[in-house]
């Protein structure tokens, strides 16, 4: 075997072995996480009977869908501004502001958002005790950066001609956006939304800061239950999350890829 290939395989094992272990043990009949006694789906049954986990899963899904949608709207606007408006006042500042969440430590982001929400509560009595709304805002505030990057990359350069041709054919700016820019952006919007959805779904740190008592998310439940000892239920939950995440990522990649293939046929 070539050395490069063995390094690749070692890398893949390093990355995916833990996931594989979780997947296998989620079907373990034993209550002990570390001893394999036989195949069983009991833990999946128990998982779906657990009220607390189901509620948390519901919260997570709601927050993920809403924050991904919000992030897509804001991130797309920012991406459009970067790609189309040329140089405008405050461009450098906005660029930095949009990139910051990509590199900012999550703990810092969490604390600052918490302080903001507490201040809002004290000043305006807004969202007392915090809840799903604060979670949605907090998640959107960092996932929108990813959407902006994806949209900007998709827009840079080539399709300018199409927008200009549409304007030349009599389309007013809003029609150009709706009939030309938006369809062109659709793959970027879908993959941006999926990425934001995934990032929101598995965020633990920021969620822990800004979630209210009634708005526990799935990663928070998993994390706290692990501290009380690992239940095989969590393996089952983890397996389901892995499958959802991989499916979303695969969908995002597939959409990007098929779009590229189609474009490759164009001059």
């Amino acid at each position, binding site marked *: 075997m070539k050395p490069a290939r063995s390094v690749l395989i070692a890398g893949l094992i390093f990355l995916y072995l833990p996931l594989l272990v979780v997947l296998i043990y989620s079907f373990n009949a034993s209550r002990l996480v570390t001893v394999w006694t036989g195949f069983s789906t009991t833990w999946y049954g128990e998982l779906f009977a657990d009220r607390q986990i189901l509620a948390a899963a519901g919260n997570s899904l709601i927050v993920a869908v809403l924050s991904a949608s919000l992030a897509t709207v804001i991130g797309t606007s920012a991406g459009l501004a970067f790609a189309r408006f040329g140089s405008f006042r405050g461009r450098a500042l906005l660029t930095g502001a949009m990139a910051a969440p990509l590199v900012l430590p999550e703990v810092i982001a969490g604390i600052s958002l918490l302080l903001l929400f507490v201040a809002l509560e004290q000043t305006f009595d807004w969202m007392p005790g915090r809840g799903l709304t604060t979670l949605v805002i907090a998640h959107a505030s960092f996932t929108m950066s990813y959407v902006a990057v994806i949209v900007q990359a998709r827009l840079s350069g080539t399709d300018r*001609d*199409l927008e*200009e*041709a*549409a*304007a*030349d*054919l*009599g*389309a*007013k700016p809003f*029609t150009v956006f709706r*009939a*030309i820019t938006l*369809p*062109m952006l659709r793959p970027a919007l879908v993959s941006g939304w999926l990425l934001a959805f995934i990032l929101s779904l598995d965020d633990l740190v920021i969620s822990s800061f800004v979630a209210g008592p009634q708005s526990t998310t799935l990663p928070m439940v998993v994390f706290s239950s692990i501290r009380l000892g690992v239940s095989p239920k969590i393996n089952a939950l983890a397996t389901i999350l892995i499958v959802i995440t991989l499916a979303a990522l695969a969908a995002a990649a597939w959409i990007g890829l098929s779009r590229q293939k*189609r*474009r490759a*046929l*164009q*001059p």
Partner: protein
Amino acid sequence: MAPVLRIDAVTKRFGAVVAVDDVSIDIGANECVALLGASGCGKTTLLRIMAGLEQPDSGRVFIGDDDVTAAPPYARPVNMMFQSYALFPHMTVHENVAFGLKQDGIKGAELTVRADEALKAVELGDLGARKPHQLSGGQRQRVALARCIAKRPRVLLLDEPMAALDKHLRERTQLELLALRKRLGISFVVVTHDQGEAMAMADRVAVMENGRILQLAPPRDLYERPANIQVARFFGDINVWNGVARSDGAVEIAHLGITVAVDGKHVPGESVAVALRPERIAVAPVGGPGLRGRIEDLVYLGSGTTYFVRTPLGGVVRVLAPNTGTPFAHGESVTLTWPAAALMVLAP
């Protein structure tokens, strides 16, 4: 007749680059004007200013009697065919053509009829259901054209419409465009950097350099009466000699050791450039009057032969002779003659 489109003293800068420099040009009704020039001389920029895709820094743009300098592209009755064709990839051919019509509020049966009509005009009647990526380069070019003419603009702006086509298709398309123009009665502005294409298509050609129009004239005038050396050089290889005007009005070309009678008044002692097209010079065996020389080099071209003739004083004259009589050989001594009217005196 009043011009359909008028560009009045327009200047456009991009940072330090002056892309269009104080250009004025009138496009008449049903006229075809070509913008000709080397890469980067500002042809596309001028076209985009006409379309409203670029705002001039100074000067005005008129369509008919209306000042449209500040009008956005969607409010101008002109349409542009992009160098990249810019077909909408997510729409079928028919939808591409119908797009512009819809913006004019045309709906239902009329929309279909007008779009079909435009597609038929470019002989693409049965490809309406295809997507742009399912078409050949030439077909895409026709869709782009159909999309513009469907709107029946007053002026059609074409940015290197033939650049992506092979030579054969290009010649056919040139003829088709001309026929289309006659049929539709619209004016064309065609950008090209191929002087043959400009000559073949246009009623008038604007030769551009560094954002300025060097000369705007019918093809024949550009060829036979170029305003300056740059324009003369643009249309084929040409002999250019420096000369000095004498008191009797003739010009002495020291380089060749001859004096030629020329049109026009020149201050004695003024230096002028004299140009002569290679095909206006006749080559004959030695004898008779004319400029003596020796054939130093020759290039056989099929329909003719280019001879490089060295004169006794060291100058080289380029001659293009048809391959009818007996050909001349390397080193042969010859006599060159030309009609006096063939000499062009240019500003150096």
